[in-house]
């Protein structure tokens, strides 16, 4: 595709995001709509918003790239990303909503009655957020390089600048409707090209270059250990993603929270059909991308290859716009929630502090993105999930379901999980993709149990430190909400 089209699409999405961020969707109501106002967020809207914030660069580009590279093994990624919500629904969503805590550090502080635990949790949340932003920036760099030919740093910097501008100027609070819109934009950007391509391919006899079952790279298929480890990371990692949890507070009651989660499961399932289809088409019609290290770009390049002329250009522009929307929405959601944590814990919670914290939370990942190479996007996001699963997830699950958790146990477990998983990630980066043994490349299968074990054993050893407020807190977490007194 021509660079001009790509630049136009990216600029349009960036400007639209900034404008929506500045002016917001301001809807005024008269009193007649009061009842409507207090019930505005229908489960459908909220579910779309969760989808919009959750589906990141990894989902948009990475899954298709992985399918191209390793075929059906890569299907575990969408399965894990989606099934993580089932875990969230079963174990975390309702008790956390009842706890009254808006962030994970708030929750651990209230549950364990300890400021030290709060600090450690905040640190874990900040690290997770930073690590999660890095692949988004890599994705942006890749998109810019592939579609416009500009140097890759332009892409990451553009995303950070747009996000900083909107967040610092006070816009782009994670507004439900904006995020919901992002989901449908991403879905459209993937679904429309796929449908067109299938129609075009069905109409004429376009020769495929390889059979869908052929492996274009000759990489060894993943063994059961890798698959299990990956699933552990994705299932447990989803539980601890800070920007996703907050969304559940927007539901007016528990019933609609459950409905929302159900709809999210449906929306995500539908969405992941399309990256899978892209990957499959890529295997048949563009297996060459796997050799040139451009696997993640298959979504961006395929429409232009299969459909000629202006139609192909337009479809490519649509895909590029959707990808950029994914980077912007996920990054801004993360920056806002990180800035909240940093400003509250370090800078005292003022508005100025929030802006400063927003800058810090966007700049650090930019630096990390410059220093590291873009690995396979889905893979690096999988590692972030593994880190979350080894640190935040144990403290959430045990905090909600086990009376015996103590502050010492929580800190010991989080530090163990963080050090083990972080160490594996660093070792993996140092050794390079080829030299890393399989158990270091996918560490979740042993770091998550280790974190749980250390947390449980340390809590047992320090059982005198169980907070005295335990019964009160547990009652609040697990008894159903009182029905609204004024409900009619």
């Amino acid at each position, binding site marked *: 595709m021509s660079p001009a089209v790509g630049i136009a699409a990216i600029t349009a999405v960036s400007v639209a995001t900034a404008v929506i961020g500045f002016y917001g969707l301001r809807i005024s109501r008269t*009193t007649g709509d009061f009842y409507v106002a207090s019930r505005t967020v229908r489960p459908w809207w909220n579910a779309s918003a969760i989808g919009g914030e959750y589906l990141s660069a990894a989902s948009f580009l990475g899954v298709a790239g992985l399918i191209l590279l390793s075929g059906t093994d890569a299907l575990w990624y969408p399965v894990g990303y989606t099934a993580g919500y089932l875990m969230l629904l079963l174990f975390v969503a309702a008790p956390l909503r009842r706890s009254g805590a808006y962030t994970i550090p708030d929750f651990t502080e209230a549950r364990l009655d300890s400021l030290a635990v709060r600090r450690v949790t905040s640190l874990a949340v900040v690290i997770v957020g930073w690590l999660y932003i890095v692949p988004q920036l890599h994705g942006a760099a890749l998109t810019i390089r592939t579609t416009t030919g500009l140097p890759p740093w332009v892409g990451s910097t553009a995303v950070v600048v747009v996000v900083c501008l909107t967040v610092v100027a006070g816009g782009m609070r994670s507004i439900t409707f904006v995020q919901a819109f992002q989901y449908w934009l991403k879905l459209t950007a993937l679904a429309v090209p796929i449908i067109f391509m299938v129609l075009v391919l069905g109409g004429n006899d376009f020769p495929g270059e390889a059979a869908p079952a052929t492996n274009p790279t000759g990489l060894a298929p993943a063994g059961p250990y890798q698959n299990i480890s990956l699933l552990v990371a994705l299932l447990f990692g989803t539980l601890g993603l800070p920007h996703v949890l907050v969304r559940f507070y927007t539901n007016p009651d528990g019933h609609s929270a459950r409905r929302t989660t159900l709809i999210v499961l449906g929306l995500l399932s539908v969405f992941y059909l399309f990256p899978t289809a892209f990957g499959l088409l890529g295997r048949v019609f563009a297996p060459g991308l796997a050799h040139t290290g451009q696997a993640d770009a298959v979504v961006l390049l395929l429409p232009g290859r299969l459909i000629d002329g202006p139609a192909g250009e337009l479809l490519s522009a649509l895909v590029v716009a959707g990808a950029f929307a994914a980077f912007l929405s996920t990054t801004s959601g993360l920056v806002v929630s990180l800035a909240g944590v940093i400003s509250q814990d370090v800078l005292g919670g003022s508005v100025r502090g929030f802006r400063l914290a927003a800058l810090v939370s966007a700049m650090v990942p930019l630096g990390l993105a410059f220093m590291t190479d873009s690995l396979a996007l889905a893979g690096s996001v999988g590692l972030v999930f593994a880190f979350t699963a080894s640190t935040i997830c144990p403290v959430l699950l045990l905090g909600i379901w086990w009376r015996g958790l103590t502050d010492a146990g929580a800190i010991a477990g989080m530090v163990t999980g963080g050090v083990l998983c972080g160490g594996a990630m660093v070792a993996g980066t140092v050794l390079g993709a080829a030299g890393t043994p399989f158990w270091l490349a996918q560490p979740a299968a042993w770091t998550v149990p280790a974190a749980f074990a250390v947390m449980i054993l340390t809590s047992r050893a320090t059982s005198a430190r169980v907070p005295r407020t335990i019964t009160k807190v547990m009652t609040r977490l697990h008894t159903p909400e009182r029905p609204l007194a004024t409900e009619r």
Partner: protein
Amino acid sequence: MPDSPLYAAAAVAVIALAIAVVVLVGLKVLRSFRELGTDAERATYTTLHAASKAGRHLRTGLNPAGAAKASRQLRTLLGCDALAITDVSGVLAWDGPGEELRPRLMELAADVLSGGRTQVFNAADLQLSARKSGSIGAAVIAPIRAGSRVVGVVAAFAPSAGAGLVRATTEVADWVAAQVELAELDASRTLLMEAEVRALRAQISPHFIYNSLNAIASFINTDPARARELVVEFADFTRYSFRRHGDFTTLAEELRCIDRYLLLERARFGERVQVSLRIAPEVLSTVIPFLSLQPLVENAVRHGLEAKEGPGHITISANDSGAFAEVTIEDDGVGMDPVQLQSMLAGHMDGEHVGLRNVDARLRQVYGDDHGLVIETAPGEGTLITMRVPKSQPGHNA
């Protein structure tokens, strides 16, 4: 080794770093020894330091966690082998050897707990087998007296109990008692603050009840259906306002209450009161103090619009602002004199805006002084009231 220069450089750096650390630590230690002063000064310092450290742990009252930490400090202070702290029902902490005495300590302390006098027990009283107890040969048990009650004992174990140890143990027990009393004072201060918040809980104004009933009465003949509707609204409004349980509610419930209130006010004012809302759905479940918005809206209607000629407009908006929810209530009514308002809020005069002062005081009481009402107003310019509450309040149940 292929890259030996690199390794050599790294090794040199590590060694240099280690030397620097050792030198720094050494200098610090040397300096601290030089500045510590005479033996007597140092003894005073150690005693006071141990006492203040133990005091910090006892400031939450007599509980196992605090007592365990304090007993360690107190044992060094007394220079005894083992030290135990109990309350009236059981042993809270034991520091040092001789734990096999632990089950029998309450039995030994029974007299001290009821009599309130320090007692000394020798080896025979303690029924110690020499093999197990090590050097412990005697115990001094002193009562912790808070006010007129004995709330626990301090027990010190040593090879022998001289007069010095008895006196010192008694003093330590008295000192612990002082800390416990301070803890009780803290607790009662918290209770007082809670009681104050409860006392400040807003009441719906009698004027409003009177006016509403009159307005409804005027509809009974002309528009019976509307009158019936209004009575039902009135009943719902009073049920919410008179509810007994809970000092907190959600923004959504409070807004529903305001809706009923405005419906009743409009029965009286007709189209003179216009209201528009801009509510971010994200903050609807935020917990706020019970009846903290309704008085602000009532203030806007009563003092902003009632005195004004022609229609008036009230805008209620709620926004998500990071870790906080921001609620603003704006009217284009007659406004207030800022100076007068300030002295009214400070409690210097009883003005018309009692509702505002009440809400302001409660917000400050619950969330701290940073979260009082922010009121922007001038005579003839309308009023803008902003309220900022943290979204995360795990301690408060709506």
